[in-house]
């Protein structure tokens, strides 16, 4: 892989990480498994990037196809049945796209709100724990959480007209 190709892959990763994560997260049992699957998807994408460029389909659709295959293989290997539609590739405008947008919007929140949302949801910490880490009262953390979710709600609604 040349330096240019590597930079291009980094850009594609940045653009599509949340979409792949949103697609995978609802189809696995827990966060650890979601991270395992998302890692596998991007490694397979990196390995097959030459093949993708030749086919000319949208990159994200190709990633969803890889993700569906990874999920299917894992379910088969562990003897689990996946509902059929869990292996389907989503349409571009469905629920996955909406959640991916929400995940990206978290990054645009004011830092104090963003910290609360990341610690509360991504790290799954209790209010008491977040308050201790951020040196704020529990009431203040709950206020930041409320304002952050209100801001996200407004932005999601705005982006959907």
């Amino acid at each position, binding site marked *: 892989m040349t330096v240019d190709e590597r930079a291009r892959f980094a850009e594609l990763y940045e653009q599509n990480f949340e979409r792949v994560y949103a697609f995978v*997260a609802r189809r696995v049992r827990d966060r650890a498994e*979601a991270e395992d699957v998302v890692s596998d998807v991007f490694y397979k994408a990196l390995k097959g990037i030459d093949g993708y460029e030749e086919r000319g389909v949208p990159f994200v659709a190709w990633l969803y196809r890889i993700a569906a295959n990874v999920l299917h293989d894992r379910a088969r290997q562990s003897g689990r049945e996946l509902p059929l539609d869990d292996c389907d590739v989503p349409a571009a405008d469905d629920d996955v796209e909406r959640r991916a947008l929400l995940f990206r919007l978290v990054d645009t929140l004011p830092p104090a709100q963003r910290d609360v949302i990341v610690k509360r949801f991504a790290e799954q910490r*209790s209010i008491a724990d977040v308050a201790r880490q951020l040196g704020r009262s529990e009431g203040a953390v709950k206020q930041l959480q409320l304002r952050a979710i209100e801001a996200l709600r407004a932005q999601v609604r705005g982006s959907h007209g």
Partner: protein
Amino acid sequence: MAERHDVLDQAVQAILDGATEVAIPRELEALVAIAADLRDLPDPEFKRRLGGRMTATTTQVREVTPYLTAEDADALIDFVKDVFGAEETMRAKGGAGGTHCELHIGDSKLFIGGNIPLPHGPNLGTLHVFVPDVDAAYRRAIEAGATSLHDLTDQDYGSREGSVRDRWGNEWYIATERGERYRPKNTKDAMPYFHPQGAPRMLAFLENVLGAEVLEKYEHEGAIVHAKIRVGASVVELGEAHGQWQPVPMMVVAAVDDVDDAFARAVAAGAKELDKPSAQPYGRRGAVEDPFGNQWHFMAEK
């Protein structure tokens, strides 16, 4: 009356606790829906680490695959299929009449070759395999002629595992994770397990030559007892040789983007040249022996 932020937080906590039905006042419904979606918010640290791995070191190595050989390779292939449910994806005869076979054990690749005289002896391996039904796999291994090294045991760290030596001399650690998933985080279905003398030096070799990254490492009195290491899309394991777990040098095929670069790095890190990089019908290839006796065959497909 409870404050709005308290009511919302009670709903958030219920969502994080996995509740499917959450009682909420009508005016907060839209916010709780956002919170429900945020439950799957990816950890930014995970995104950063994965992105770093994708774009820095791992572009050099795509995956590593252990290569076992036997004079009666067909029988070894049958053993792996019967015991672990391996799927054969390719079997071909080479110019000298030898067999090359590619298999998958779950999500992991394994190559087996041979069916010709092997004057220098076979390439053996040690593999750690996770299966959904460890009791059945272990029983099948014994029935297929393997000898037990350790009977199946429930370990404190959550695995039920045992180990066998097949009749060719390969060692198999057969395990399942107790609980909902049959294998723990940071593992693949089948992983080569190295027991070098000087595990930290071998780890440094893997990092320098193959861009390896430590996923988990457990040490005791300065020695690496067990480490899980990502190499490209693969995971290998490593632990300092001790007791009955002595080095079994392996032959490993590393699919790389740049054979010449990987070869040069390996030699610079103390490996012995076996075959200088050259063009082959299937792509470019070069091979080295690392300071621990393992053979690394670097391959780049055409």
